[in-house]
């Protein structure tokens, strides 16, 4: 089990290196002078920056400087926000995005498993139809539309109630997080519902469930230990990429709900061509995702013995 985890972590480091390199080379293809922007820069400052990042050196040297800095955890200083280290920016804004993302994933996973199991149990009866209809809506309406519409709905609800039932934008309390997290997790929840449904249906008609019934076990036990436990496997497998999708898709929700998360800052950095922030955020996100995927894989090893004993 631990060998498995160790191997995965090693792979993870390699992957992060690849991501960092890809980011580096992509950014170096951006046309224009990285230091050229609105602020006037004294020659001394400019020279310092050039020295620090080796901007006057050949590409390979710059690459090595970049990797060396990365290994030390130094992501550099923002080009547009003076004297702000990228690390600080991340430190300040990432927790917001992380909380939003975690809430969204919890919402998506819990909902997806619940609805999926329900549709399989009540197959072809009205709960099945109702849930599947909502699921189909969930996978086809774009998230930004849902975000905008839900804001509109919130405004109306608040107006009707005469008071602020739920805040329409901003960040701070749990109430602020609820609706954005739900909006963010909606698409993934729909997807997980379908996955859980087909998995459950397949398991319900499988041979070992037939054996469990032949043993005369109580239905609750058959459901819990035989059906549910095996049906969840594909859903957990998919959780890794699902986390990736949610974290990177978060910035639209952050934009619409005015949440000060890392995604929003990333978009702003892109619009302002703040190179260090762009690169640093990308590598950070990449590393984070790789880490999450490993966590999920290890978790999967706990549930499915076939994986860890190979």
């Amino acid at each position, binding site marked *: 089990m631990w060998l498995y985890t160790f191997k995965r972590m090693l792979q993870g480091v390699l992957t992060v290196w690849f991501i960092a390199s890809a980011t580096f080379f992509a950014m170096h293809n951006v046309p224009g002078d990285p230091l050229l922007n609105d602020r006037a820069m004294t020659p001394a400052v400019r020279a310092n920056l050039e020295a620090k990042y080796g901007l006057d050196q050949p590409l390979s040297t710059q690459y090595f400087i970049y990797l060396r800095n990365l290994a030390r955890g130094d992501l550099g200083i923002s080009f547009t926000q003076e004297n702000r280290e990228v690390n600080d920016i991340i430190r300040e804004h990432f927790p917001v995005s992380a909380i939003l993302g975690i809430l969204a994933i919890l919402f998506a996973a819990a909902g997806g498993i619940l609805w999926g199991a329900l549709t399989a149990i009540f197959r072809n009866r009205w709960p099945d139809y109702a849930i599947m209809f909502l699921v189909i809506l969930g996978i086809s309406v774009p998230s930004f539309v849902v975000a905008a519409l839900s804001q509109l709905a919130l405004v109306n609800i608040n107006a009707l109630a005469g008071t602020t039932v739920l805040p329409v934008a901003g960040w701070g309390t749990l109430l602020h997080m609820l609706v954005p997290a739900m909006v963010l997790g909606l698409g993934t929840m729909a997807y997980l519902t379908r996955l859980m449904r087909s998995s459950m249906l397949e398991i319900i008609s499988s041979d070992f469930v037939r054996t469990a019934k*032949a*043993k005369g076990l109580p239905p609750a036990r058959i459901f819990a230990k035989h059906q549910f*436990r095996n049906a969840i496997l594909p859903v957990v497998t998919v959780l890794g990429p699902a986390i990736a999708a949610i974290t990177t898709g978060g910035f639209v929700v952050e934009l619409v709900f005015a949440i000060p998360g890392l995604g929003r800052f990333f978009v702003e950095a892109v619009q302002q061509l703040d190179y260090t922030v762009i690169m640093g955020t990308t590598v950070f996100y990449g590393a984070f995702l790789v880490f999450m995927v490993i966590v999920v894989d290890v978790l999967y090893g706990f549930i499915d013995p076939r994986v860890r004993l190979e």
Partner: protein
Amino acid sequence: MTQLATETVLDPQTSPPLLEVENLAVEFDTYGGTVQAVRGVNFTVEQGKTLAIVGESGCGKSVTVQSMMGLIPMPPGRITSGSARLRGIEVLGRNAIAGKEIRGAEIGMIFQDPMTSLNPTMTIGDQIAEPLQGHRGYSYRRAFNAAIELLDLSKIPEAARRARQYPFEFSGGMLQRAMIAMAIACKPSILIADEPTTALDVTIQAQILDLLRDLQTETGMAIILITHDLGVVARMANEVAVMYAGKIVEHGSVDDIFYRSAHPYTLGLRAAMPTNDPSLKHELTPIEGSPPDLFAPPPGCGYCPRCPHAMQVCDSRDADDYYLEARHFSRCWLHHDAASLKPDELYFRNSD
């Protein structure tokens, strides 16, 4: 085909049968229409004896036993008639008799493919312990220890270590042994084995069948063995029921079926069996054609189109069960008094 040491002729009944199935009929609603899978089946199972149900794929053997166990999902499936009585008490549609549950406790069942018939995420020991916990109220510890003993009984080496392993760590033969251990955990009076050896090698086959036999001797349970392999029948069965197109076409002792076949289909099955006798040099004779479409079953005998001795009446009406001896019947018009054709290969009453 193994030779039996002594011939066995069944006595007329001295004790009531353990299980009596009468006129069982099962239908299924499918998107293509209604399939009449079982069309009126009668058989009995004696205490401590083995009944083999033989037939081609699709003849209804599995559906018959599964409907007795309540394993057929009843929305698409439907029992349209018949009864199944265990020790005189009706079993169809009920979950328990006199406090003892039918599934798992009174009747145990093992299935064809052990690789897919066990939960991949639970240890073998846990899965064997489950029925003991559920039906006997054992604590987990007690049940698990009993599971180890059962694995031992099923001749699995290192039972204690094996009980903690998962199905994917077992071979096919060992898994089937584990399944057997699981099925007999609560000491059922009947064990149903649905093609238990079809997915296994021949050598493992023999071991499993021997195990079943030994267990039967020790526990005195009856066995219903479903198979399409006449070799297995010869080795294991006391009585045999031959099924075709949803009906039992011949029923008798194992000797009756092999030496005194009274139905053309039974003859066809025997002729299609390969033999290891080097002196015999004839070709395998398969039965031409395929079983009838059970969406629209024929009004007459299902075997008619493939039968070399078919008569006019066979096409339009199905025969009754004609008794040649007390426990040997054949469902064939050839045994009617008015039938003049009496093919040599078939056994008739008052022949020899």
